[in-house]
Structures are given as structure tokens and as C-alpha cells.
């Protein structure tokens, strides 16, 4: 049946996170990326079986004509939409929750400060995962479902906006009094904050019952979706890709090209999808192969934007391949990050990741406690992750550091 892969991945992650944390790795010391994946896994486990049974019923509908969904056989097409959205709404959280996790890593590392409201960000991921199951009906305000359901679904939809808002505010607050380093991954992280905010605000808009009647199934929704999924997920993934590139491949990418590409992607993205917001509000329906003359200008603008976006993405592909072949060897911890995968391991992890199971004694973003990142002293690490004139950062020998504050 469909989706076994997602289900088992989800189960695997949850069990690993619950049962196989390194010694000292309390829930409060879990990197937020892991929290993001944990929330994602919950959604995968709970939602995927429903799309599985929906598929089975659809196949039986086609072969045996069981008449659950097909109105010609006495079924109800709106019921199908319930089945579909019970999976498909949570499914978008499968895409965005890991992005939230990546973003927390990027913001913390490149502003070298502890994530503001760690607990709020961690728990809001789980809250979003759970609430995500209660709002599927907001895709159905004009589909023929009962008005009372629409009202309830709309109300709960706003509740989801709040944890997302909390995250944005906390990330911005993390920048405060940090030490901000504008490398490519950080550029993506900052673009995310801007684009995802637009995605969130337009999300509130389409959650408004009466306004949604106008905006439903128009380009506004298309644009909202892309601001969340592309401006959110994809941008965060690009940031994450650059961030972990040295860890994955052992090579560095070209920083200048990286920054140019990040700029192109940001400009191209907005040029592509902002006109679509306007188009949608003006009444351009989605899934149209053909459109009326009056929508032509904005459509053309959007098309031009997509070229810019495409140029940016191809540039990334280009220098990524180049880096694989000719890239500079990556140092062990080029960003001065403090999470486990950057410290305590070689540049490219060996088969078991760690030669010895690490003992965790502080939070993931406690840079002020992370002496090993700074080579045991202050002010000696270079922007490229190398100690000034002293070669690569060494894996420090066991230097017991102060226990983490539990308040993190």
C-alpha cells in the first residue's frame, strides 16, 4: 500500500529520537533540527495511512464500483475531499517542519547566539504537527461542506498561525545582540524570514472565511502556497544544503557565487510569485492553461521572474557540481557551529559517526560554553573555520565544561 516508505521513515525517526539519544542528550539539549524532524515524523505516521486507505477505496471504486465517492454510484464527492485533505493538509507540514528545524540551526550558528525561546520553538513544532490535523476543512469553504464545519475549521486554522508567528518572532529576536555572519546559508535564512512571513500573512488571509470565498482556487492561493513551500521549505533547504555541504561532501563551495545565487533566487522568487498574489486577488483562477487579455501583463512579469529564479537555481547546480569535482577541502567546522555533527567528528564522519559515543553536557547553541569550537580560547578562529595560521581546528580532548543551564 501507498506510503509505507514515509510511515517507516517516520517510525524510525521517532523511535531513534525517543530511545537512542546520546548520553546527556536530554530533550532540552536536542538540536531544533531534530525537534523539527520529530514533529515531521509524527505527521508522517498519523497522516499517511489515511491516504493509503483512500487510494485503496479509490481503486475499489474503479474496479468494483463500491460507490463511496462517486456521485453516479450514490457516493459523495465531498467525502473524498475530507479523506484527501485529512492527509494532504498535514502533508504540507511534512514539508515545512524540517525547514523550521534547519532555520533554527542556521540562525543560531551564524549569529552565534542561543536560540531565543528554544522551548517555544521546539514545542511549537510539535503543536503545529498536532493542530495540523484539525484544520483540513479550510480547503473546503466553498466545496459544499456544512457552514458550521467551515466555521470551526477556520477558527482552528488561526490557532496554527500563532505557533508559526512565535517562531518568526523568536528567530528575529535571536539575531539581537548576536554576532551575525552573512555567509550564504545565513542569506537564505534571512530570505526565509521575509518570504515565510509573507506566506504566513497570506495564509491568515485565505483562512478568513468570507475573503477565502473570493480567493479560493485563484492565483492568490498558488502564490501563498509557493511563499510557504518554496519561500519557506525550498529556501530553507537551499540554506541547509550550503550549510551541510562541507559535512556531506567534504568540499567547500564558492562563497561569492553562492551569494550571487542567493540574491538571484530571492529576487527571482519575488518577481515570480508576488505578481501572482495580485493576479489572484484580481480574480485569476488557478489551473488555467489560458487566460484573459487583462491578466497578461502580470503573467508576463511572473514569467520573467521565473527566468531569474531559474538562473539562480542553475547557478547553484553549476557550482555545486564544480565543488564536487574541484572544490577546496573543507575544514572540520567551517562555520564554528556547536552541534554534535560539527564537533567531535572528522570532517567527513566515519561509519559509526563517532569514534566514541559523545557525552553531551550543554545545550546545542551554548556558544559561550563551546570552548572546543574556538580551539580552547577566545578570538582565534578564522572566518573560514581555520585557526589563524595554526591549521585546522583539532578535536579537543576531553575538557569537561560547565553543565548546561537547564533553562535553555
Amino acid at each position, binding site marked *: 500500500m501507498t506510503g509505507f516508505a514515509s510511515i517507516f521513515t517516520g517510525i524510525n525517526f521517532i523511535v531513534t529520537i525517543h530511545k537512542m539519544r546520546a548520553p546527556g542528550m536530554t530533550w532540552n539539549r536536542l538540536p531544533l533540527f531534530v525537534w523539527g524532524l520529530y514533529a515531521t515524523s509524527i505527521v508522517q505516521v498519523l497522516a499517511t495511512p489515511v491516504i493509503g486507505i483512500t487510494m485503496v477505496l479509490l481503486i475499489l471504486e474503479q474496479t468494483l464500483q463500491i460507490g463511496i465517492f462517486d*456521485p*453516479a454510484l450514490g457516493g459523495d*464527492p465531498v467525502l473524498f475531499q475530507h479523506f484527501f485533505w485529512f492527509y494532504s493538509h498535514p502533508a504540507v507540514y511534512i514539508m515545512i517542519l524540517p525547514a523550521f528545524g534547519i532555520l533554527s540551526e542556521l540562525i543560531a550558528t551564524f*549569529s*552565534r*547566539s*542561543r536560540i*531565543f*525561546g528554544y522551548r517555544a520553538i521546539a514545542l511549537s513544532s510539535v503543536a503545529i504537527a498536532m493542530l495540523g490535523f484539525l484544520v483540513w476543512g479550510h480547503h473546503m*469553504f466553498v466545496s459544499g461542506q456544512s*457552514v458550521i464545519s467551515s*466555521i470551526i475549521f*477556520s477558527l482552528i486554522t*488561526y490557532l496554527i*498561525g500563532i505557533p508559526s*508567528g*512565535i517562531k*518568526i*518572532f523568536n528567530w*528575529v*529576536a535571536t*539575531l*539581537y545582540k*548576536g*554576532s*551575525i*555572519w*552573512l555567509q550564504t546559508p545565513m542569506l537564505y535564512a*534571512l530570505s526565509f524570514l*521575509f518570504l515565510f*512571513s509573507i506566506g504566513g*500573512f*497570506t495564509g*491568515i*488571509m485565505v483562512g*478568513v472565511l*468570507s*475573503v477565502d*470565498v*473570493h480567493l*479560493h*482556487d*485563484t492565483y492568490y492561493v498558488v502564490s501563498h502556497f509557493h511563499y510557504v513551500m518554496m519561500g519557506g521549505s525550498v529556501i530553507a533547504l537551499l540554506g541547509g544544503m550550503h550549510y551541510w555541504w562541507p559535512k556531506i561532501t567534504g568540499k567547500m563551495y564558492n562563497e561569492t557565487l553562492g551569494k550571487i545565487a542567493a540574491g538571484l533566487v530571492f529576487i527571482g522568487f519575488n518577481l515570480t510569485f508576488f505578481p501572482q498574489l*495580485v493576479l489572484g*486577488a*484580481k*480574480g485569476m*483562477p*488557478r*489551473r*488555467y*492553461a*489560458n487566460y*484573459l487579455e487583462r491578466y497578461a501583463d502580470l503573467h508576463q512579469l511572473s514569467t520573467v521572474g521565473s527566468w531569474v529564479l531559474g538562473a539562480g537555481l542553475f547557478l547553484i547546480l553549476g557550482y555545486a557540481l564544480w565543488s564536487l569535482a574541484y572544490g577546496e577541502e573543507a575544514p572540520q567546522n567551517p562555520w564554528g557551529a556547536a552541534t554534535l555533527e560539527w564537533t567531535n567528528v572528522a570532517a567527513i564522519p566515519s561509519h559509526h559517526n563517532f569514534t566514541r559515543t559523545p557525552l553531551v553536557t550543554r545545550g546545542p547553541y*551554548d*556558544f*559561550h560554553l563551546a570552548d572546543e569550537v*574556538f580551539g580552547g580560547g577566545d*578570538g582565534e578562529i578564522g*572566518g573560514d573555520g581555520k585557526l589563524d595560521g595554526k591549521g585546522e581546528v583539532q578535536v579537543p580532548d576531553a575538557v569537561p565544561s560547565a553543565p548546561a543551564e537547564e533553562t535553555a
Partner: protein
Amino acid sequence: MGDFWLPEAASSIAPEVDGLFLFVTSVSLLLLAGVTGAIIYFVSRYRRQHPGERPAPVKESRALEISWIVVPTILVLLVFNWGFKSYVKMNTTPSGTYEIQVRAQQWNFLFEYPNGVTSDTLYVPEGEEVKMKMSSSDVLHGFYIPAFRVKYDVLPNRYTSVWFEPTKQGDYDLFCTEYCGTGHSDMNKVVRVVSQNEFQQWLEQKATPKDIPLPQLGERLYTQQGCQGCHSLDGSRKTGPSFQGLYGRTNHKMTDGSSVTVDENYLRQSILKPEERIVDGYQNVMPGSYSSLSEQELSGLVEFIKEQSDKDPPAGDAPAQAATGQGAN
């Protein structure tokens, strides 16, 4: 700002929706400006000065955390309440509204008025509450008039309805918003808001006289029933075969390999039970709903199709085409 974002507002509910839209947009822009401003300020103020910088951790502020939970909650509840009220209003049809039937099918809307007049342009009187009672004869469709800010799905086997009160004369767009097949993006119509007097005149003029000649009745039905969506009169190929030169054609190939002579019987059959014989090269997509046409209407359509073979064959084109058609088959 309203003009930049929204289309013309031409119904009684539109100002309410627009007000809410613009309110949410303004608040969002304000917040977005705040967030962006903060990001830019922090980035420039706290840029890393030297590589080994280790800033002291910032103390968390519970008050701040709580404030950005509480304030947005209040804002969204306000917006919810507003949207909820106008949504209920949109979904509650006032009593005594003028009712127009909407029949949606792939890929056409047909509007039927209480006196039996059918039209494929939606005429509505200005300043009167109108209810659209909608049903679909095949798949899901969506009924959307941007200028009126109304939209609702059209379901097969279940009536749904929307109501609106047009407040401004003019022509507006009507779209299908639920993906319904290849012709989806061409499934749009014109809504014409006219004064009440004009509306009455139009209704009377459109009402079919009892003694109308059959071919003329057929011509009316050709547009009203939406035949023109799939069957052209100029020989061009659409979803279905063109009517030009159709009547009288012999050796008309079917998908099952047989061939027929196009006579009155064949035409009647094809209208009533289109699925029985499919012309070679075409799909079985014609709706079965035409079986409800009256006997007179059927004869009218057949006569009208007949005329498409008789009238001014453009310089021997029609017979030639029939001949090549045969040759090709």
C-alpha cells in the same frame, strides 16, 4: 490600494469582503515592515566584527514571549469574527430571491430562467437579489464571479447555491474554478448586469415563441444548450465533429469500424444517446443530458444541422470535403 489588489466591486457583499481584505493586508504589511526592519537593523548593528567573537547569551524574556502570543491571538480572533459574520451572510439566501438555474457541464455553463428561457450569458437585473441554484451533469465545477466576490462549487447530484445583489451595470467575468478537464480554462462566461427594465425586456424577447420555425429553434438551441462549445459550423475541428457538411454524409466512420450514413435518424440517436456510436477520431465525452430535450426541440436541432449542409457550400467546398473525408477513411 483597493484598485491595485482587487477587481471592480459590483455586488452588495463586495465592499464588506474588500474592507476585510484591505484590513488584513494593511496589518500584514505593517507587521512585515516591522519584522523586516528589525532584521535589517539587527544585521547591520550586530555584524560580526572579528571571527572569534563570542557574544554573551541574551536573557530570555517571558513577558516578550507572552506578548507575541497574546497580541496576534487577539488580532486573528478579531479577523475571524469579522470574516465569520460576512461568511454567514453570504451563505444565507434571503427569502424571495429571484432564482436562476445553473447547469454546469464539461465545459459550459447554461443559465435557465423561471420562464424557461435559457442562455449562455448570465443576464441579471441590477439591484435585485438573485439566487443561482446550481448543479453539474458530470464532474465538479466551480462558479466564480470575481466582481461579485462569490464562488461556490457545483456538484454532481446535489444542488448548491449562491446569491448576490448586483449593484453596478456592466459586463463581468464568470469563471470555472474547479479543474474539470482539458477545457477548464475556456469555461468562462460573461455576466451582464442590466437595469430591471432591460432585464424584463430581454426575458420576454428571449422567450421562445410557440410558432417559431424549426431551423430557427434549432439555431437558438445550438447556442443555448452549449453545442457550439464542441461542434463548429465552419468545418473546424473541436471536441466533437463540425456540423458543416455533416448531414447527408455517407460512409461516416465510427470507432468500432462500422460506418453510417448521416440521416435524421442518426442525428437524433447521436443527440439522445451519444455514447452508443462514437465518430472515429473523437472521444466519448458528450453529455447524456440532451436526452431531456423535447420532441420539438429535437426536430429543431436536426433541421438546423441539416441546414449546415445545404446553405451556401463555399465554392464546392462542402462536397469536396465530404469526398476527401471518405477518401481518407
